[in-house]
């Protein structure tokens, strides 16, 4: 009998989902927040976790990342905001599936069963942080940028920070403020010009290694974006 751990701050939802699943023959554990979840996980090894994205204290995103880094537990994420679904299952978090609230019982059961079928015991591997785009591969752990043909492109640490910023958020328009915050943080002497300068240097290097690719584009209201899709590689 598979065990399912339900982590949600709403007691009624824990109970309703729990009742539904136990009627279908699953064993149920519940936890109202991340701390209670940790306790349950010390006691037993559930086969699947249903995790609410928005919780007081440590939120679902952080819990998901933490679990992902330690054990191969399939996670079904519950989210109240439909606009977060893209990120939940995207590169950033690695939840195995998601359900947008409100959901019907049939949907929930279908997803749970699918996940349990899919989740063959697997050897845990720390997620690789190598990303391919255009003819480049950016290795965020080794902090280097390779081309598929000519080897390593030398970047300064500032340029690499900027590149990681783009690679982790492909095709999103990033304002200068956001870039400053995500790279080395805003300091007293950093201005919008700093970003412009850094972007133009990075652009030149990318352009030199991949002529005509035009990878970083300027958007009208003063932002930049990486124009090509990025995929994770091993």
């Amino acid at each position, binding site marked *: 009998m598979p065990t399912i751990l339900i982590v949600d701050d*709403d007691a009624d939802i824990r109970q*309703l989902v729990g009742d*539904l699943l136990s009627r279908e023959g699953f064993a149920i554990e519940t936890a109202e927040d991340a701390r209670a979840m940790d306790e349950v996980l010390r006691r037993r090894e559930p086969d699947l976790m249903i995790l609410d994205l*928005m919780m007081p204290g440590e939120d679902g995103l952080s819990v998901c990342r933490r679990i992902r880094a330690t054990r191969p537990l399939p996670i079904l994420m519950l989210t109240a905001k*439909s606009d977060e679904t893209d990120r939940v299952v995207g590169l950033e978090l690695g939840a195995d599936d998601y359900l947008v*609230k409100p959901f019907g019982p049939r949907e929930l059961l279908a997803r749970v069963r699918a996940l349990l079928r899919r989740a063959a015991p697997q050897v845990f591997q720390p997620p690789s942080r190598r990303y391919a785009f255009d003819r480049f591969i950016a290795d965020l752990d080794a902090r280097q940028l390779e081309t598929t043909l000519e080897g390593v492109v030398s970047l300064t640490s500032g340029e690499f920070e900027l590149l990681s910023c783009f690679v982790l958020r492909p095709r*999103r*328009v990033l304002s200068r403020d956001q870039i400053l915050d995500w790279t080395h943080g805003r300091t007293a002497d950093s201005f919008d010009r700093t970003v412009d300068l850094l972007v133009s240097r990075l652009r030149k290097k990318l352009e030199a290694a991949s002529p005509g690719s035009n990878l970083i584009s300027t958007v009208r209201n003063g932002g930049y974006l990486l124009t090509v899709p990025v995929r994770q590689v091993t």
Partner: protein
Amino acid sequence: MFRLSLSRRLVAIGGAGFLALWIALISFYYLANGLSRTASNPPPGQIAAIVTLLKAEPSVRWPALIDAVSSPILDLSVVGIDLAPENTLDLWEDPEYRIYREVLGDDLLSIRLLVPERRFRRPRLLQGVLNPVQFRVRLAPDRVLVMETRTPFIVSWFGLPAGLGAGLIGTLFGVAALIVFHREIRPLTRLAAAVDRIDPVGAPVALPKLKGAAPETQALLKAFDRLQTRLHAIVRARLALIGGIQHDVRTFATRLRLRVEHIPNVREREKAATDIDDMIELLDNALLAGRAGVGALDEELLDLVPLLEAEVTDRRAAGARITLAALPPETALVIGDRLALRRVFANLIDNALKYGGAAHLALAIEAEWLRVTVDDEGPGISADRREILMEPFVRLETSRARKTGGAGLGLAVARNLAEAHGGTLEIDDAPSGGARLIVQLRLFCSQ
């Protein structure tokens, strides 16, 4: 329309003020010295006295006498009788000058206004004032006295023309004022530029530091800073409200949706579940429009083809009559909010399916615009209803109110969101006779 900048207006006001001051000073000078316009002409008695004196003295003494009575405004010379004709205006008949004829009698030969030969003609209006008046008086049968009188140039104690001091001081004040005004105006221009960059959802814009600016300018700056803070607070509160409602209503709806399963009657149960779904959709529409209203949409480079394909596939799987004439991948690229654009097309497709029985989507690229059309097979929408239909809570079938579901928010929200992306939403006729909804979005071009 021609508009004066603030600094020019201030300079003009200052200039007018100094001009008035200058005129007042000159007028005062005239009044204090008892001068009048006729003072430019010598009194007839003076001319008569000069003529009498010259007649009484031998001609060798004339030069000394002439020197004695000459002045910058009175020029005397003695010439032979045959005077060359000059370009003159005769004043002989002028009533103002009759007095001279009476006093000098037959000795007066002519009174003329001299008009000098010049390239540029002086204004006729000023001729009487600016040009010398010439009197010719007979001294002896072969000697004629020529007197030319000029308008006196008003001179101050220092030998400078009256009013020059006021003019100079005025000019200095004017230049100083210009500099000061410029210094005061420039911060306002910078402030305006900074205020233009204020983004209600972004980071606060640093307004320029205006050291040494006027208190009024400083007050304006502080007011704008407070306004910006308030604006951010309002938008933050609105977004927090939207987020809070999203979360809490969905939590309630989830409980309700799960409790609904305990309704024994299958039909009632399904209806209740549909009600919950409609409610959530209404909420999503309203909240997304609220988010778009404060400019809090994401910006992402999107390929519309997979986005539309996903919408179409979902509905086709549910048994809807829906087609898509797509473009090759990576051509229909726009910058926008994924969720908002999905909402735009979901609303249009659902409307087409609900009221028109089918949805036929087509993508086309026209210059820098991407054009998505959604055609249905319904009765179409008459031209006079099109505009009103895009207002919130307006539905075409008012008689069958709510029978087919929907709150009348779909089109309004779709248009709202399309416009928030710099695009448009229009209603037209489909070639097959149904309604055609056209969404135009600006294509992304790399630069």
